[in-house]
């Protein structure tokens, strides 16, 4: 059963897969409804849960009466924290950013006190989901309301002594951690105070305060968890981005051995960071399935999702930028307040730290200081949301660069050019201490300008300004970069993160020559099955169709660190490459043996080992078959050419791009309408242009949505007012436009593919581009800021307010809460009037 004879003539060369617009393998099941969402799973005897959640942001629980609920039809049990022992586990914070960090304990079920509206206080177990919900209505919980810490600035200032509301009174403070980076101390640059002082004497100092409003990731698939405790292992299916991390967390906090837990993330309907969590709901389902010995399911409603799945952003940014009169930046000082919500989520505290390295963006600052105070409040916890820290940083610096351009009186692109790292200067060590390995800001900007018709639009803008057009044109610029491909484990260690940043892959050469690729990355829409197939097809020289990518199951992919931080391709993909290379090297002696040639005389090309100077050769896929039979192997060779690899990157990678946005502002109503948007991104070598374009488009709309539409708003009592899709405004197709995108290519040097991450780029870049465009349109009115989201009313008020900028009602700090405060509103439950 040796295949060597059959492959005497070389196979026709396969078309290169990398760079090809492959249609996705994933789609066949998704467009026909043959999907595997967690909520689809039904198991014999499966029980259902309904959560009883606190309606109060902060309240002492003085009594829970479940008598009536327990007597309702189909009810198995009603449990509270008191009913469950430590087997329930706790939600862990994996990233205490300082050794002194104040971290409140986070039990999945509140016992004596609820710390945010939506926190679980009791759980109903029933035969059907409907019965569970019915009985949940009968659970009577007595609360004594406590003062709630809601406003971020007030919470930061509150102490036990001054009587301010404390999110957790026993902690005596709302301040969780204070984290500082200073270029002078780090040796990566000068002293920022000196730079500011010098600029005050002779130069420009800009002081601005920006609000990163609270957002909700709002993945389309509500979270769902099923746990089956029958059999030797406990199996959890969950709509999660992180099956591996979740398995570890379950084991670490419940005492169940990791080897007894299998976590499966089947088809997962979007995440955007929002499913990067070890959730109370998962812990509860796990505990109750074990306790009852039956499969248990919980699927949240959208309203529950919006109030309890973690939120994102929510920072105050105080910025001081020093520059020379020529607009060359000499220093930047950043002081952040970051709202953690009621608990420190799995990496919640670290989100602003991820941003700390990005405020200098593509610019050559000689001095930089960053300080961040994380703050506990009685609101839903916050954590990663697409970009996680980097969009906030990029927004701040890109807004500031526009402000600086206005101050100096030059074009926003000109001010950037005066400050950016030129392409000859790579690799470049930044003032934040990162080494940018590659990039070409000039090229991306030139291409973007050309696509955009920059000069023509500027001319139109001028005409409209001169004619006093009711509809003004604004042009926004964003020349972003980001650090992605999370992450070099040593760097994570230096930042006190609780895990590494490597990724694992294995390749199984099946008896028929087909290839199974197992990755520890866990896709939820990104197209891993397609992109990784392309990589392996090229590397092993096998047909794309012969490659099957497996992921999202800890039993199949035994090692992994999952998908977030634009890491899958650049870390997980590189692991796949390395595993593939190992397969080839393992197969080489076998090929030599079968071809009766020496290893040195073999070359591997297009899936085939050939003997140099002859036609003799053998296909890799046939060697797989040969190891299956194992009849004729070299002495001592194990009958396998399977291989695995774990890749730990030595550096991040740094996608960048120039985004240009044109908006029209109706100055009578304040409504902002997108007119055109150009994105020229440099994401290195593109594996699948189709998938990349999709990632960019989707990212853009999420970033645009932060600029114009979305905001999680709480009322004075701490209830989430934007608690359904009626009020949390996701843009529709009718609110967005078609985009023009292109790429320039500076290959990354930190992985052999030359690829950079792309999942977060669009989101990071687009928010400042849009807000810059809005402000640009309104500069003749004396406006130099509009708070996000730039609602029609805020824009209108900014125009009315004239040159006050930060004091414009829509933008200024004190007005923020008033303008979004709710009173006497109609509570609509449907987005569509009948």
């Amino acid at each position, binding site marked *: 059963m040796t295949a060597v004879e059959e492959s005497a003539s070389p196979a026709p060369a396969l078309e290169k897969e990398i760079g090809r617009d492959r*249609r*996705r393998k994933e*789609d*066949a*099941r*998704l*467009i*026909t*409804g*043959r*999907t595997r*969402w967690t*909520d689809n799973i039904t198991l014999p005897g499966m029980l259902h849960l309904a959560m009883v959640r606190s309606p109060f942001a902060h309240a002492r629980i003085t009594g829970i009466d479940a008598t009536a609920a327990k007597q309702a039809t189909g009810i198995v049990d009603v449990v509270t924290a008191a009913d469950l022992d430590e087997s329930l586990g706790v939600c862990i914070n994996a990233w205490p950013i300082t050794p002194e960090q104040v971290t409140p304990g986070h039990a999945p079920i509140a016992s004596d006190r609820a710390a945010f509206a939506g926190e679980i206080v009791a759980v109903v177990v029933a035969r059907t989901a*409907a019965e569970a919900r019915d009985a949940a209505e009968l659970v009577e919980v007595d609360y004594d309301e406590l003062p709630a810490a809601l406003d971020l600035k007030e919470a930061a200032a509150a102490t036990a002594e001054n009587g301010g509301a404390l999110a957790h009174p026993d902690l005596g403070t709302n301040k969780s951690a204070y984290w500082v980076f200073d270029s002078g101390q780090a040796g990566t640059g000068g002293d920022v105070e000196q730079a500011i002082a010098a600029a005050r004497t002779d130069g420009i100092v800009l002081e601005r305060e920006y609000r990163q409003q609270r957002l909700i990731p*709002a*993945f*389309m*698939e*509500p979270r769902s968890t099923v746990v089956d405790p029958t059999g030797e292992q406990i199996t959890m299916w969950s709509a999660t981005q992180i099956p591996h991390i979740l398995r570890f967390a379950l084991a670490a906090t419940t005492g169940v051995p990791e080897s007894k837990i299998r976590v499966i993330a089947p*088809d*997962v*309907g*979007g995440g*955007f960071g929002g499913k990067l969590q070890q959730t109370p709901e998962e812990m509860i389902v796990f505990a109750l399935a074990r306790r009852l010995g039956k499969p248990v399911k919980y699927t949240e*409603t*959208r*309203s529950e999702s919006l109030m309890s799945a973690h939120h994102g952003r929510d920072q105050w940014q105080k910025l001081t930028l020093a520059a020379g009169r020529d607009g060359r930046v000499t220093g930047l000082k950043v002081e952040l307040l970051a709202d953690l919500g009621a608990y420190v989520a799995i990496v919640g505290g670290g989100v602003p730290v991820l941003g700390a390295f990005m405020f200098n963006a593509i610019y050559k600052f000689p001095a930089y200081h960053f300080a961040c105070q994380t703050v506990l409040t009685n609101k839903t916890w916050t954590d990663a949301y697409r970009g996680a820290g980097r969009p906030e940083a990029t927004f701040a610096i890109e807004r500031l660069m526009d402000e600086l351009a206005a101050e100096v009186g030059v074009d926003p692109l000109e001010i950037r050019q005066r400050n950016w790292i030129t392409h000859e200067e790579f690799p470049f060590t930044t003032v934040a201490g990162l080494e940018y390995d590659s990039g070409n800001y000039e090229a991306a900007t030139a291409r973007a300008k050309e*696509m955009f018709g920059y000069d023509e639009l500027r001319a139109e803008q001028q005409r409209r300004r001169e004619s006093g057009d009711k509809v003004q044109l604004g042009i926004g610029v964003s020349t972003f970069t980001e650090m992605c491909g999370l992450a070099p484990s040593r760097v994570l260690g230096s930042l006190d993160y609780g895990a590494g940043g490597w990724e694992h892959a294995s390749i199984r050469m099946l008896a028929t020559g087909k290839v199974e690729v197992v990755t520890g990355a866990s896709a939820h*829409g*990104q*197209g891993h099955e397609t992109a990784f197939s392309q990589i392996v097809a090229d590397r092993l020289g096998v047909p794309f169709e012969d490659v099957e990518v497996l992921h999202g199951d800890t039993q199949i992919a035994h090692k992994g660190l999952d998908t977030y931080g634009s890491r899958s391709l650049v870390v997980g993909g590189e692991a796949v490459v390395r595993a593939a290379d190992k397969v080839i090297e393992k197969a080489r002696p076998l090929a030599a043996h079968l071809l009766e040639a020496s290893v040195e005389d073999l070359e591997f090309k297009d899936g085939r080992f050939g003997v140099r100077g002859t036609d003799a050769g053998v296909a890799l896929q046939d060697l797989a078959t040969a190891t299956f039979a194992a009849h004729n192997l070299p002495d001592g060779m194990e009958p396998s050419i399977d291989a695995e690899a774990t890749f730990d990157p030595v550096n991040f990678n740094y996608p960048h791009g120039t985004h240009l946005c044109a908006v029209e502002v109706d100055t009578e109503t304040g409504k902002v309408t997108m007119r055109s948007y*150009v994105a020229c991104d440099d994401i290195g070598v593109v594996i699948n242009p*189709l998938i990349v*374009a*999709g*990632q960019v*488009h*989707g*990212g853009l*709309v*999420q970033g645009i949505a932060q600029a114009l539409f979305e905001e999680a708003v709480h009322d004075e009592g701490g209830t989430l007012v934007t608690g*359904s*899709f*009626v009020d949390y405004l*996701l843009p*529709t*197709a*009718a609110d*967005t436009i*078609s*985009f*023009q*995108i*292109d*790429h320039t290519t500076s290959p990354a040097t930190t992985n052999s593919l030359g690829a950079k991450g792309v999942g977060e780029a*669009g989101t990071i870049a687009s928010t400042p581009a849009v807000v810059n465009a809005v402000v640009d349109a309104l500069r003749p009115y004396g406006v130099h800021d509009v708070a996000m989201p730039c609602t029609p009313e805020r824009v209108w008020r900014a125009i009315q307010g004239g040159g006050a900028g930060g004091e414009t009602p829509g933008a200024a700090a004190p007005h923020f809460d008033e303008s979004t405060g709710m009173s006497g509103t109609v509570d609509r*439950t*449907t*987005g*569509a009037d009948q």
Partner: protein
Amino acid sequence: MTRINLVVDGMRVADDIEPRMLLVQYLREKLGKTGTVVGCDTSNCGACTVHLDGRSVKSCNVLAVQADGSEVTTIEGLAQNGQLHPVQEAFRECHGLQCGFCTPGMIMQSVDLLKDNPKPTEEEIRLGIEGNLCRCTGYHNIVRAVQHASGQPVAPNEVTA
């Protein structure tokens, strides 16, 4: 319990159900038609869109009893004789989906749209699917998929300048 009779994806079915059961629950829980999904509780997201007597509806916003005597088509009944519907094919061709959760509803609504308006403009497409939320694609490629399905030229994907 109320008895209902209807035809779902060409199959005649009859069941005794609670009046409160939503059509989408009936499809998913009674018939195992899990291709149709639930994305919200306020009828905003459109993920549950199916055809009821030939017109698109949000199946979370219809009681199963209201569908008594009707004909329902779900995403699972769209392909005929093993052939994908042109709209399904177009979503794949134009990368009109990523996570795929909104996709069943998006496809069912697009089919309805093209039934009324076989050659819609971009604006008509965007308004025609305004009742369907997508969080992944930014709608760009969904619009292109509908254009493609309607036989209209679609700009190449990478550069749309």
